[in-house]
């Protein structure tokens, strides 16, 4: 297992593997999102209760999934970095932070816009919404740390440890917010039971999720390429100076 990682932990070797994957996932992301949008906006039937507003689900739910997945990815790669000390994992974790911020933000904003026509308000202090807002702030904190300690080995550990602490804390936060919500909120406006999801609705949902996943991989790999090439550029200059 470790040997296998060693092979790809070398950034240059990783790039060789990554560039074709990047191209494929970029094209795949474009097409799946395109087809997904056609399905979501045109072909899928309106819900019998929510009518047309149900279409917001096809952007809201996938981006919420993706933001959780991004945090999981950051957490795991920070753990790998702290265990095996391969810089590649840290680059992966760091570069997925802005993507996570955008996913979380779009989930929040589309959720708010979905809430207005269905529940009557943009924002409810519901457990799920609140914990998502906190997730957003943790993402922002990670970005803050990433920017303030840019390019120092100290900052690297800071980032990795913060995402570690955040990862352990997120379930606790979710649990506490759930607890708070169930105890002291008057019966919430959100109707339980949810939408009966038919097969025709599942198709655009999964298409969009797949598209966003490909998009995530594409942006991540582009950013990693930028990061590695930038470093090699700096090292190249250094070697020029020394000679």
């Amino acid at each position, binding site marked *: 297992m470790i040997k296998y990682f060693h092979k790809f932990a070398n950034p240059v070797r990783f790039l060789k593997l990554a560039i074709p994957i990047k191209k494929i996932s970029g094209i795949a992301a474009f097409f799946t999102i395109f087809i997904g949008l056609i399905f979501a906006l045109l072909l899928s039937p309106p819900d019998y209760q929510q009518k047309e507003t149900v279409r917001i689900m096809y952007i809201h739910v996938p981006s919420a999934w993706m933001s959780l997945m991004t945090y999981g990815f950051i957490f795991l790669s920070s753990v790998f970095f702290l265990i095996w000390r391969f*810089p590649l994992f840290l680059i992966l974790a760091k570069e997925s932070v802005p993507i996570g911020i955008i996913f979380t933000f779009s989930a929040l904003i589309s959720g708010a816009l979905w809430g207005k026509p269905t529940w009557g308000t943009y924002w409810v202090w519901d457990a799920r919404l609140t914990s998502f807002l906190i997730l957003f702030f943790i993402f922002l904190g990670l970005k803050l740390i990433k920017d303030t300690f840019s*390019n*120092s*080995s100290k900052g690297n550990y800071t980032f990795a440890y913060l995402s570690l602490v955040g990862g352990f804390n997120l379930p606790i936060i979710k649990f506490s917010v759930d607890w708070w919500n169930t105890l002291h909120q008057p019966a919430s406006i959100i109707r339980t039971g949810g939408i009966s999801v038919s097969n025709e609705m599942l198709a655009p949902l999964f298409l969009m999720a797949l598209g966003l996943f490909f998009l995530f991989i594409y942006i991540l790999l582009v950013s990693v390429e930028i990061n590695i090439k930038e*470093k090699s550029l700096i*090292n190249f200059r*250094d070697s020029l100076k020394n000679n």
Partner: protein
Amino acid sequence: MSKEYLLEVKNLSCERNYKLIFDNVSFKLCSGGVVLINGNNGSGKSSILMCISGILEYKGLIKINKKYNDKIGYVGHKNALCEEDTIYEYLTFWKKIYNYKKDFNYVINFFDLRKYLEIPIKFLSFGQKKKLSFLRLQMIKSQIWLLDEPISGLDKRTRSLIINLITKHIEKGGGVIATSHQIINLRKVKNIMRVKID
């Protein structure tokens, strides 16, 4: 006696911020010997000391002879002085930390600090702070001293005092690893090794 080593460094290399700072540094510190590490600014002189003291990660081998006292004394740019304490408080605190049984009166006199004993450290000058650092070093009772630019920025008198202290330490059988751009003239010491890194 002279063959006995206090500390051995073999093929030491260190990476920081994914950049190689120095590569393949090897030397042996014998008891009664001095290792002077020369190099330009930013060549990683301080980093070698940091590696030996166990702060930075390194590749290679650093072996400390367990026969002797394997404590390490380190004086760096930061003097570990709490600004609010008086000198007396500072000394008694570190004395207790190091479990130093003897009185420190002798060393205080040696450094000419007796009249400042009750003055808070924030009023002291740079050289006096450095002297306090060396006072603390005396109390560690370690064989190996790591000195990061011990005499830079000091006047002649303090410089000679510190050099005196170092020679005394060497005569007792200790070893010193020092970095500096200026060459420390240690005339009495024969066993000087120079390591150049670039």
